[in-house]
């Protein structure tokens, strides 16, 4: 279909503009994030559901904790309820006795799960002061 006012150079320019727009101005996607907190060494887990979709797709289960050489060690499964493969990111924040985050590095770990698969996460607190942790889950949101 031809527009009566569009000459060939104009259409070329418009096409270039569209391509440039697609290529250069991709803004990062805002992703909702869910957190699961365990302030003390009990097994009571507080959930902060930012994304109901993520909460439906990923379930945290089989949470166990122990003290090993004076440090809190935690293990849990992240199970996918989806039949298809899924990618997500997780991050742990260690908390002290008062629930304050400890100054430990916080980076997002990329993870991939097959349909209905699970990932076992085992982590040891980097400092003996840690008495709880907070798990944050997010859809993939990488710098790309």
């Amino acid at each position: 279909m031809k527009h009566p006012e569009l000459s060939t150079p104009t259409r070329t320019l418009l096409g270039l503009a569209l391509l440039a727009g697609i290529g250069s101005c991709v803004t990062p996607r805002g992703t909702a994030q869910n957190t699961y907190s365990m302030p003390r060494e009990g097994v009571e887990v507080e959930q902060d559901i930012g994304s109901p979709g993520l909460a439906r797709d990923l379930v945290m289960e089989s949470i166990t904790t122990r003290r090993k050489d004076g440090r809190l060690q935690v293990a849990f499964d992240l199970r996918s309820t989806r039949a298809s493969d899924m990618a997500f990111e997780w991050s742990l924040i260690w908390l002290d006795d008062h629930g304050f985050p400890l100054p430990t590095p916080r980076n997002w770990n990329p993870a991939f799960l097959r349909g209905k698969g699970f990932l076992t996460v085992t982590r040891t607190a980097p400092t003996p002061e840690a008495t709880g942790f907070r798990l944050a889950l997010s859809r993939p949101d990488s710098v790309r």
Partner: protein
Amino acid sequence: MKLTRLAPALLLLSACSSVRYDDPGKTETLTIDYGSTDLQTLAGDMVESLVSSPALNYLENPGKTEDKRIIMYVGDVENRTSEHIDTQAITDKIQTQLLKSGKFRFVAADQGQAEIGDQVRFQQGSGRVRTDMMREFGKQLGADMILYGTLRSIEKRKGSSVESGLTRKQDVYYQFVLRAVNIDTGEIIWQDEAELRKTSSQGLFGRI
């Protein structure tokens, strides 16, 4: 306004660029090459293993008093990948996290020793420092163990073909091996490896 006049403006507007600050812990998949997420993941995995290893809790040494924590010297990580990687960034990150963990004690490596040497020579030779405050050589702690390792990669590329749906594929596998060896005996007391796999698919019009 005719579209012919509008088109250059659209081109300028759409070819915009932006700079902003972002979360340093955010995953990065800008290219398949070694990046910040790989550094964080490899270092994090090793710290986790080192901190939770009971074999590295304490080591006796006649020179030690009550504090029996292992005194570590952080050596080099040999880069056997095809990329230019500053492997000292890995050891620095590991050392920072281990130091914060309180599990180990560390002695200065090459850069620190050079600085110490300069400073002690300055204190003793410049005539500017009080004699009762002069530091001297011969009082440093001796390391119990050395931490060193190797970073390797295996890379594979597959060109675009009809079979692959005209996409180019690339796969990189990183293996990071780190070990702690007893300086006295040469015995490897601890060793672990961390692995990473990254894949990239690129279609005719960009990454998929």
